[in-house]
């Protein structure tokens, strides 16, 4: 049973954590893609920016969380979300909108977003340095050890406080987005514009508003994902480059332009990553006596080493592009 606990700790929980982060990120990417039709490479850095804002605010008000009994970073998250949303709208106004007005090809917007990536990265590193910092400044990171009620189970299931917040907030964000897209007028307008921009404009939908709303949502979600990831580990300015590929893979797996698909894709990529680096020989240990020797002999049965984790999203990306480029949920735009 200890092996099972090990599996839960290293695959189920770790996979849900990275899956949630990728899912929130991929929703933002996919929304931008469905409204503005380009792959937004600066999304990873918008996440970092959001986390950095939380870091700054938490440094300024370290005691803010004590009144509510939650970490200060979480209390200040809405403010950081607003700031990141503002940044996203500002970036669009300053850099993407002129390009769109010129009627350039989408790939030029992609290059523009790479330029924005570098600018954000430079700015964040200029102010934050290059080392990692913890977002827990005045608070203590709670770690819950849940012992399983079975005979002979010594190792507990370990969940940390930020991971619990991450699951709750992911759920809230996804349900909220679902309600927004399916019930509200603006959400319906967004879906209309994603289906057919010209028709949407002709039927009196203000496309500029929709674009701004998309950026607000994408920026807010990016801030959530970045902050929760930084809470779970630490805040690192060069976080973004390693997030970009899994997030794009998640968005494409789920079908580009398909928010629910992006959530599913995020979890697919997250679990695939943790399953690929998991050492399967641990699970075989209880059956050691009944298995052939060559299988149990080697101590390491992981598919890839942790240092090659980035291969997994790429492999998924290639498989999905070859096998079904529209994604598992049949994305609308391709």
């Amino acid at each position, binding site marked *: 049973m200890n092996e099972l606990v090990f599996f839960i700790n290293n695959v189920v929980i770790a996979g849900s954590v990275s899956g949630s982060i990728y899912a929130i990120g991929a929703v933002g990417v996919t929304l931008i893609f469905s409204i503005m039709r380009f*792959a937004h490479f600066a999304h990873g850095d918008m996440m970092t920016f959001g986390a950095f804002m939380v870091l700054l605010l938490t440094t300024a008000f370290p005691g803010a969380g004590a009144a509510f009994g939650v970490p200060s970073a979480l209390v200040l998250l809405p403010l950081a979300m607003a700031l990141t949303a503002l940044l996203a709208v500002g970036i669009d106004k300053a850099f993407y909108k002129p390009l769109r007005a010129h009627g350039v090809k989408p790939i030029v917007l992609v290059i*523009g977003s790479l330029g924005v990536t*570098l600018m954000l990265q430079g700015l964040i*590193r200029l102010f934050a340095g290059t080392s990692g910092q913890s977002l827990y400044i005045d608070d203590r990171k709670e770690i819950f050890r849940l012992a399983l009620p079975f005979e002979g189970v010594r190792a507990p299931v370990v969940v940390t406080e930020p991971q619990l917040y991450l699951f709750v907030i992911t759920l809230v964000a996804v349900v909220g987005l679902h309600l927004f897209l399916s019930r509200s007028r603006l959400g319906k307008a967004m879906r209309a514009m994603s289906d057919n921009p010209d028709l949407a404009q002709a039927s009196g939908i203000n496309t500029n508003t929709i674009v701004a709303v998309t950026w607000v949502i994408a920026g807010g979600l990016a801030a959530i994902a970045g902050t929760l990831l930084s809470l779970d580990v630490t805040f690192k300015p060069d976080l973004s480059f390693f997030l970009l*590929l899994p997030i794009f893979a998640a968005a494409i797996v789920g079908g580009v332009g398909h928010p629910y698909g992006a959530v599913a894709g995020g979890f697919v990529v997250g679990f695939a990553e943790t399953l690929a680096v998991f050492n399967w020989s641990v699970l075989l240990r209880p059956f050691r006596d009944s298995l052939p020797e060559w299988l149990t002999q080697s101590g390491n049965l992981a598919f890839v080493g942790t240092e090659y984790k*980035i291969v997994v999203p790429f492999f998924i990306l290639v498989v999905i592009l070859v096998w079904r*480029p529209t994604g598992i949920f049949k994305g609308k735009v391709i």
Partner: protein
Amino acid sequence: MDTKRADTVAAPGRFPLRELLLFAAVLVAVLGVYAAMGPAYSTRMLVEASCYAILALGLTIQWGYAGQFNAGVMGFVALGGFCAMFFSIPVNEAFWESELPGELGLVLFYMVAAALVVFGATRLDRLGVPKKLRTLIAVVLGVVLYLVVINTFRGVADQIESRAGFIGGLGLPVGVGWIVGGALAGGVGYFIGRVCLGLRSDYLAIATLGIAEIIKAFLKNSDWLTRGTATVSPLPWPVPGPAEVGFTLARALYLSVTAVMIAVIFFLLSRAYHAPWGRMIRAIRDNEISAAAMGKDINKRRLEIFVLGCILMGIGGAALASFNSMFDPQGYLPLNHTFLVLVMVILGGPGNNLGTIFGAVAVYIIWIMSEPLALFLMELAVTFGEGAFGWDAPTNLDSRALQARVFVIGLLITLVLRYAPKGMLPEKVRHHG
């Protein structure tokens, strides 16, 4: 039909004033660097700029000729660098005298055999096996064989690392490594292109970004092959090295090699550009649908040009690694090896080879000079800040000042796209009557 429309008549050759002015400006800048920093440093800068010019030519045919955006130049550069290292450094006797080469060969043979078996399994449906069962068999077989082979391989790699350090080189002439580097980069480009080029152009950018990180991760962590973070140096030069003829002369000789390479590549590319093949490539870039309607095989042409660009990047990367005389997988950074090249191309003029070379040299001079300049400005600000407000500066100022370059490159990309999307020397499209 004697009347010709104005825009179909070949344009009369105009005096290339703009080109002359821009190249004169670059020449002045180079002379300025020579005067300020001495000949050895400046020649080094020119050699590196010429290596970057080869990379930029590779990117300009992908982006300028064909409209494909490669966001992973770094990966192809690293592959070229690896080949330059692997083929040229001396043979490692400790490895070849043990039984390890045989074991490594056996593992490689297992890999090929496993790949063939899995490939065979995917063809089982031809023998009447139902398609779903075939897929299941192929996947299970692939997973099991992969695990078995990779475990054997890990064992051999560990043995190599502990007993011989790494497998060493082949001790061949430098040029062999450069050529194989180009071929290897082209091979990886072929794989990526096959997957992505039929789809939206965004996917190519995402996939190349990914493959670049994977190549870097592989080279960094395969200690048995590349010594990983321990780096390999020195790499031999194709010309007499600094120890024999002194720094300036050796670098000047190296510069002549790269200059000849650029001249050859430039000549071949401009021939290809004006040939029917080049016109076809541009027709596909400008209007894919009408090119397809003319019966052009769009995906095949795209694949050709993408692979060609990757080959050039591999060669340029090999030349760069040989010149640095060190192979350091960790030294390959997206900023230095992808985005810098991108700026060179879009600033110089995508699709215009002369403009690209201009962009490469000009941007590289600015890039090299920005480091001392940024530090100087930063120190000035600190002295001023301390004097005026008693501000105590953070200690890691040097590393932070360099981050300013990241910002400047990003700003440059967005500004050029906005205000000069065709670059300083725009592509000249000649119309034939």
